[in-house]
């Protein structure tokens, strides 16, 4: 066990896989010599050489396209898109190619690759360093989409993703890189050193893709969330003093519907929290599934707390970013109904 930030945990996962599997390669913009703008790959090129860890041109569809070709050949590329906001040029390669190659070739060719991308806001990054595009991936058959919320999960899930036989979109909530974030942007965040999930085992282990985690047990209302919003939910529950059950989905597709169902059948109430814009966000899918699976148990309408349906603003970031107060209001509303 060692205490790690999420950045260190991610780096450690790549280190483990680069060491134990020669078919693993890591590349992306600035990931080579420099080690990535968030330093997630720092030191890896020095350790494994530039045939294993290298810089790429600024072309995300080229990064994805090269990775697809390598993966089809039999390698296991784990590539970085510098910010999730910059994956859009690669959207064709990711959704129409990586996601479809196993199917359309009837499994002659497969595409075991990971695309890591920092996601979400809270760093005053404005429109193009803050978006949360997960719903654009969950609509695509053939992709898996995951998002860890702490160093322990980050390492275990990244190893699982690299070992997965299919393409995995690996979203990294950048607001959590250095510590959990409870929504108080004026105060100093605690680092991962103060959090139990900052304790990360050495060497190889996996956190399976497709399993949610109940972070807080409770009886009155279920909160479905992932990434940074897990901590916002915790903060909201504390301040609202409601006996909520908080589920960190971790894997959006495949979704652990069983865990969700058990919880909502117990509580009869459910609030979904995510940063992404509301309309057609992943919250919509969660609500559609929950109302279908748990309709007869529901005591009040399912609530969504999300980013507003506006482009991510710079100055008004903290009014856009769903904070504990907004989640609390939704909880109260769900309880009152």
């Amino acid at each position: 066990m060692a205490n790690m930030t999420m950045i260190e945990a991610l780096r450690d996962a790549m280190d483990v896989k680069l060491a134990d599997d020669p078919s693993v390669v890591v590349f992306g913009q600035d990931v080579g010599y420099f080690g990535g703008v968030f330093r997630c790959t720092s030191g890896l090129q020095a350790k494994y050489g530039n045939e294993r860890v290298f810089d790429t041109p600024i072309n995300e569809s080229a990064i994805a396209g090269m990775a697809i070709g390598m993966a089809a050949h039999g390698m296991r590329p784990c590539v970085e898109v510098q910010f999730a906001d910059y994956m859009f040029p690669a959207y064709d390669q990711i959704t129409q190619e990586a996601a479809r190659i196993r199917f359309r070739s009837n499994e002659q060719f497969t595409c075991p690759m990971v695309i890591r991308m920092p996601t979400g806001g809270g760093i005053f990054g404005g429109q193009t360093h803050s978006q949360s595009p997960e719903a654009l991936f969950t609509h695509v058959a053939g992709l898996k989409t995951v998002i860890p919320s702490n160093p322990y999960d980050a390492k275990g899930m990244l190893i699982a993703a690299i070992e997965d036989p299919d393409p995995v979109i690996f979203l990294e909530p950048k607001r959590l890189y250095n510590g959990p974030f409870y929504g108080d942007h004026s105060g100093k965040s605690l680092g991962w050193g103060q959090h139990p999930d900052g304790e990360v085992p050495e060497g190889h282990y996996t956190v399976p893709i497709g399993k949610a985690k109940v972070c807080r047990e409770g009886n009155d209302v279920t909160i479905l969330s992932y990434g940074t919003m897990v901590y916002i939910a915790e903060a909201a529950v504390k301040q609202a003093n409601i006996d909520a059950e908080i589920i960190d989905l971790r894997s959006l597709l495949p979704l652990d519907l069983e865990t969700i169902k058990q919880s909502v059948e117990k509580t009869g109430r459910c609030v979904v929290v995510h940063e992404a814009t509301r309309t057609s966000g992943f919250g919509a899918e969660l609500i559609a599934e929950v109302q279908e699976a748990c309709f007869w148990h529901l005591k009040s309408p399912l609530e969504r707390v999300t980013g507003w349906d506006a482009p991510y603003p710079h100055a008004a970031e903290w009014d856009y970013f769903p904070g504990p107060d907004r989640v609390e209001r939704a909880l109260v509303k769900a309880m009152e109904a």
Partner: protein
Amino acid sequence: MTQTPKLTFPEPPARPDEVPDFSNIKISEPGAVGIPDFGFEAKDGREYANGLIRVMDKDGNAVGPWAELIKDVSVDDLRQGMRDMLKMRAIDRRMITAQRQGKTSFYMQCTGEEAIGCGFQRQLDKGDMNFPTYRQQTLLIGADYPLRDLFGQLYSNELDPMEGRQLPVLHSARDYGFFTISGNLGTQYIQAVGWSMANALTGDGKIAAAWIGDGATASNDFHSALLCASVYQPPVILNIVNNQWAISTYTGVAAGKSRTYASRARGYGIPALRVDGNDYLAVVAVSKWAVERTRKGYGPLAIEWFTYRAAAHSTSDDPGAYRPKDEALSWPLGDPVERLKKHLISLGEWSEERHIQLEAELLDEVTSVQKEVEAHGTLVNEQRLSPTVMFKGVYADMPEHLKRQRQEMGA
């Protein structure tokens, strides 16, 4: 001199009811363009990218340095080339009829372009991988792909190795060096670069060959492939099949003011050749040379194959609406089958009679496999694959939500 900005809109030299006009096309004399060193650089390769490598003269004689290069290619190999091309032609002919009869939804011919894929594929080794477009079934023919599998795909029936997943002609045949074709143009070009990087990184001694049409060179992936090939120097051959048309769109709309597609590659620092794609000997010579050069580690190479799309774009297309009806007959580089025939006859190794006999023989072979495959079902005569097959291969292991959906389908 010009005084106000005005847009230009590239137009083909002739439209329907006009006389075909290829006078804008400059054609090097056979044998005129030489053979560069394996290590030649893009900047020194202007003549190879702007000229046209040709071997056969108008009487069918093989001339010049590239002819020298393949003088040890046997007459049997050339006759095999003839057989490959005629086989492709027989398949195309049969499938056009089958599509008209509603036996399949869609088909695409490659008439006039047969030499390129047939000749190229025969120079590859097992394990080398093509990343083809829909107009390179010739690569499968040149790889002796079983016709049963080929027709199975075209009929989407139980003999289809892809179990009906893909539109007809979008084959996939890993063991025959044929990557799964995407319906999205261009995407495979950068994937080929990635694959060839894996060739180099694993040191497996194999190479990759990317394929793209002139129209699709406009795609982003064409650019990113040239760029990454230039940066990382993997063992990849970047083929561009310039057949003058992209559906109804004249090649000028993809070329702009570029002199040739090969010269565009040069701008990326990638050495490039431009070749008469209707000259089977030129195809064989250049492919042989290119494959050897690539395998030896001299880095990426672009080849523009200059040809003409003699048939319609697809069974959904009517070229009579946008170009002169018999434009193909005026194509200055002729027909690949006719030209190879002339060469073989001039060698005393072929005759009109043997030609007709071979055509008949191939038509028989093709027809008999086709009928056999048709017996397993066509669109009008469905013998359905189980629809649940559509849930297979979405992922390696079927996730719960797909299991639920398969159940919901009630199948």
